[in-house]
């Protein structure tokens, strides 16, 4: 399995069938697989904050849910994460395409990309970074288990080293 297929398998293993996302060229490699798979319901949101709301709504009626976005979009989610996910204790895995790392070409992506993990740390939210697919399935499975055990969001940070990224 490649990294995208590993993510899809982990979501299935954790019965996570509602996926809310804002399109991104790098995570498209995963969301394309999700869209083609009848196990999932992929909801295209207009904004990442909205995606969090949709995912929490699904969880509230008993369906596991995850969100996909890029790091700039994580900035858009902050009020939803801090005033919804954290106080209500909702285990929403957040798959984030990390911009602003090696190979970044766009200055506007750098500040949010570089501050995503420090912000997660400030919020006390656990995050895992994937630069390659070595033991990825195992780590992802453990991350989702931790997410549900702690009933808080967990961030899965996907770097350009993993997925190839957007080069220009």
């Amino acid at each position: 399995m490649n990294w995208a297929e590993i993510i899809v398998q982990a979501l299935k293993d954790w019965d996570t069938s509602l996926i809310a996302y804002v399109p991104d060229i790098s995570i498209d490699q995963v969301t394309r697989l999700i869209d083609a798979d009848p196990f999932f319901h992929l909801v295209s949101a207009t904004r990442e904050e909205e995606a969090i709301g949709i995912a929490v709504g699904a969880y509230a009626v008993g369906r596991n849910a995850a969100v996909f976005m890029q790091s700039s979009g994580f900035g858009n989610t902050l009020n939803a994460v801090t005033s919804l996910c954290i106080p209500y204790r909702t285990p929403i895995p957040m798959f984030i395409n990390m911009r602003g790392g090696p190979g970044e070409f766009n200055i506007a992506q750098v500040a949010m990309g570089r501050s995503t993990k420090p912000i997660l740390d400030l919020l006390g939210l656990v995050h895992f970074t994937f630069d390659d697919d070595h033991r990825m399935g195992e780590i992802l499975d453990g991350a989702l288990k931790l997410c549900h055990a702690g009933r808080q969001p967990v961030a899965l940070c996907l770097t350009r080293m993993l997925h190839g990224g957007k080069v220009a």
Partner: protein
Amino acid sequence: MLRFEATQLILKHAGDRPIVANLGPTTDELWHAQHRDRNFYTYGNMGLCSSLALGMAVSTSEQVISLDGDGSLLMNLGTIATIGREQPKNLIVVVWDNEMWDQTGHQQSHTAMGTDLEQVAKSCGITHTATVIDLEELETVFRTALEGDGPWFIVAKTEQSEYMPVSPIEPEMTLYRFRNSFSS
């Protein structure tokens, strides 16, 4: 119409259907009208009331009711487009539209200045829409919405009213109680 009386009317017909309430007075009034396991009270996350209800609607076969507000929905108009795109047949959005941000000092909202949320919903592909100005109209439209397919988008014009005491409830318990009601 008074939002509290309108909330009582919604509850009278809602049966056991899940209801998501916008933050502030809408949540407080829902609690005072009738606290029930299937009330999802919000305390922050302004703008996400109908996004939560959308996530529920695409994840359960039951009808889901969103009690949103004009100021909150203006913060997240995009979710109307997502509802239009998803077309959940089991979603009923009711917008309490008092044309102001009441809690922050009664500033006029955009719906007082020409924004027509029903037209926004229509332009997003939501075909079942209405704007109602009194309890009688609301009851007629809401009962119709309960009996057929949606999504429904109902703008209910409300007037300013006194605040009720803040509802004594916790977010974590709200989610736990609400979610458990779907587990059987």
